[in-house]
């Protein structure tokens, strides 16, 4: 003892102003750890920015559209031979009957503006093939207009649209059988004359999908409605079932082998690949229950099955995290089990439950694989009806539409697919923001 005190007093007294070796090492380790963290986060942010920028660059074009305005004469002898303006009779004229009118209008606008381009063939190819159908729909809706000349705004063809978005150049047009450099020159001339313009347009969001060779008129309308319907189904099924199941398992169920088994199985289900749920849906809902293919109801059911365990697990964790003393307090003043759960436990667990729910919904919104199996990948041009019947109409879904478009040959669909990804991301961001807002609203800071 005496030796030690002697030794201690012999050693120089340590100063608080100078760090000793141990403290220095500890601080260095801490600084290193912080550095790793900063590096990791920087990498993540850079990757995210890269993703965002590239998607924006590729996809923002989808929200812009090139239009050509033409004065079209609605010739009576072509559209209504009998001259009685009967829509039923006029409907016999197919889109092939309208194409010549567009061709004439195009030739007229070229002549009127004094545009002369050597070797120009088929100037009407500047207009989308959809234009005839657009005109036919207008005429059938307004039969009294036949015989008049009125301006129509037609969507330009995908190649022309691509020319103004930098996808198509004079060189690529020379090699392209669908477009020629002369047609591009014509487009430039029309643009100078004010008959052609590229501008922002919502039609990408509202129009239905279009066929392989008409990328310029393809849109997300049906996919958005389909996704929305499926989310409604998931919300209506997975929320009540998931929350009720977690409350029951946490608060009421006896703890025994059977409930242990259920617990293990819920965790396992959360890990099952989503495509397996697709097979299950195909077998049960379509083959066995006889529900229609490609219908949002089936997609919603499949996604509900997939989402349920992903809602139950965080919901149970949130319920578990409520301190037991709160339950004791409630029981102690004579509240029943049910009152304890609904008055005290649930409000405290609500933020966690909601966050789990919205993350589950967001995952369901982005899910593709199971939907491919139940036929949601079909080509659907008809908008589904309003709910509830619309739930049984064929539809597609946003992520499936992305997948679908990336499979197509025309490079214009790459832009469309990126645009669809932007829409999907916006939906996801809205949902996550909602989750954060709800969370902070329900969070009790006391």
């Amino acid at each position: 003892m005496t030796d030690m005190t002697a030794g201690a007093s012999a050693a120089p007294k340590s100063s608080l102003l100078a760090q000793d070796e141990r403290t220095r090492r500890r601080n260095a380790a801490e600084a290193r750890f912080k550095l790793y963290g900063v590096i990791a986060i920087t990498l993540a942010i850079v990757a995210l920015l890269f993703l965002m920028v590239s998607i924006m660059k590729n996809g923002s074009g989808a929200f812009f559209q090139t239009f050509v305005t033409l004065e079209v004469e609605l010739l009576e002898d072509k559209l209504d031979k009998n001259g009685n303006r009967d829509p039923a009779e006029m409907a016999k004229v197919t889109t092939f009957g309208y194409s010549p009118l567009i061709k004439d209008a195009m030739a007229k606008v070229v002549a009127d503006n004094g545009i002369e381009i050597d070797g120009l063939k088929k100037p009407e190819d500047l207009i989308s093939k959809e234009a005839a159908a657009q005109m036919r729909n207008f005429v059938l809706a307004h039969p009294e207009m036949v015989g008049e000349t009125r301006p129509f705004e037609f969507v330009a063809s995908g190649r022309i649209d691509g020319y103004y978005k930098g996808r198509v150049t004079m060189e690529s047009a020379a090699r392209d059988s669908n477009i020629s450099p002369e047609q591009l020159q014509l487009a430039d001339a029309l643009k100078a004359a004010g008959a052609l313009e590229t501008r922002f347009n919502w039609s990408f969001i509202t129009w239905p999908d279009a066929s392989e060779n008409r990328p310029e008129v393809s849109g997300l309308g049906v996919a958005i409605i389909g996704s929305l319907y499926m989310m409604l189904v998931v919300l209506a099924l997975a929320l009540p079932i998931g929350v009720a199941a977690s409350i029951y398992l946490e608060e009421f169920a006896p703890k025994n082998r059977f409930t242990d088994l259920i617990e293990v199985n819920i965790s396992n289900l959360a890990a099952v690949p989503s495509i397996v749920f697709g097979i299950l849906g195909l077998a049960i809902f379509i083959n066995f229950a006889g529900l229609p293919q490609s219908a949002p109801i089936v997609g919603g059911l499949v996604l509900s099955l997939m989402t349920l365990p992903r809602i139950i697990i965080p919901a149970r964790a949130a319920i578990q995290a409520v301190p037991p003393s709160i339950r004791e307090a409630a029981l102690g003043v004579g509240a029943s089990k049910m009152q304890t759960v609904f008055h005290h436990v649930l409000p405290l667990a609500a933020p966690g439950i909601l966050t789990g729910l919205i993350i589950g919904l967001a995952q369901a919104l982005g899910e593709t694989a199971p939907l491919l199996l139940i036929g949601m990948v079909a080509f659907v041009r008809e908008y589904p009806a309003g709910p509830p019947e619309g739930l049984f109409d064929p539809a597609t879904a946003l992520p499936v539409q992305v997948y679908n478009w990336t499979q197509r040959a025309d490079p214009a669909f790459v832009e469309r697919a990126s645009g669809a990804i932007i829409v999907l991301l916006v939906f996801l961001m809205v949902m996550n923001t909602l989750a954060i807002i709800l969370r902070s609203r329900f969070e009790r800071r006391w």
Partner: protein
Amino acid sequence: MNDMRLIQRTVDMHETKIRASGVDVFYGDNHAIKDVSVYIEDKTVTAFIGPSGCGKSTFLRCLNRMNDTIPICRVTGKITLDDEDIYDPKVDPVQLRAKVGMVFQKPNPFPKSIYDNVAYGPRIHGLAGDKSELDEIVEKSLRRAALWGEVKDRLAEPGTGLSGGQQQRLCIARAVATAPEVLLMDEPCSALDPIATAQVEELIDELKQNYSVVIVTHSMQQAARVSQKTAFFHLGNLVEYGETGKIFTNPEDSRTESYITGRIG
């Protein structure tokens, strides 16, 4: 110690409110309470004393069946309230707990406003006809718990924002608001300063006029001050039970004497 003899004379005239006979409690294999038989009188304060871990809280929790909520806990034996077996399968523990209120060892206010903390019990039991009646109950309960003066201007603030001692008094107010017939208090003053302690003891004294109060305490002085009956627990056994005056002045068991004089614990 003189006033104690004064109290002694007034006891023994009350009828038995709770009677426990041959109660054993197990937590899994842990035998926490060993064959305890005790009777708790109406309009009386009964103190449970004993070293930490001897089973005071456990036994207290048997009296309003709070132990039901612990899955591994098993209670055997018979406990009656007003001669009715509280462990009878026909008894709804919720109804029992409305009659036998409890203040827990650790303050556990609800994460709600001070007002709602106190009003919750009366609300779910339908004790107040309208808002003004409820206001009255809340004020009265907070006054009895010696908290009214401190919180009357901030009833809407969260109960969890109070200090530890204030939270404990809030829990007392919450317990008395439901007008229980028996009030179980598990170390209600462990977080309180002497002034608040004195106020709570005053409350206990007042409650005694109508109710039966069981209080667990580690303070010999408190047990001596507020209680008429004292039970001394040791290692799960009820070692000695009787008049407070007698336990503190002339204990029969040597373990009681050692504990009171500070030699075991």
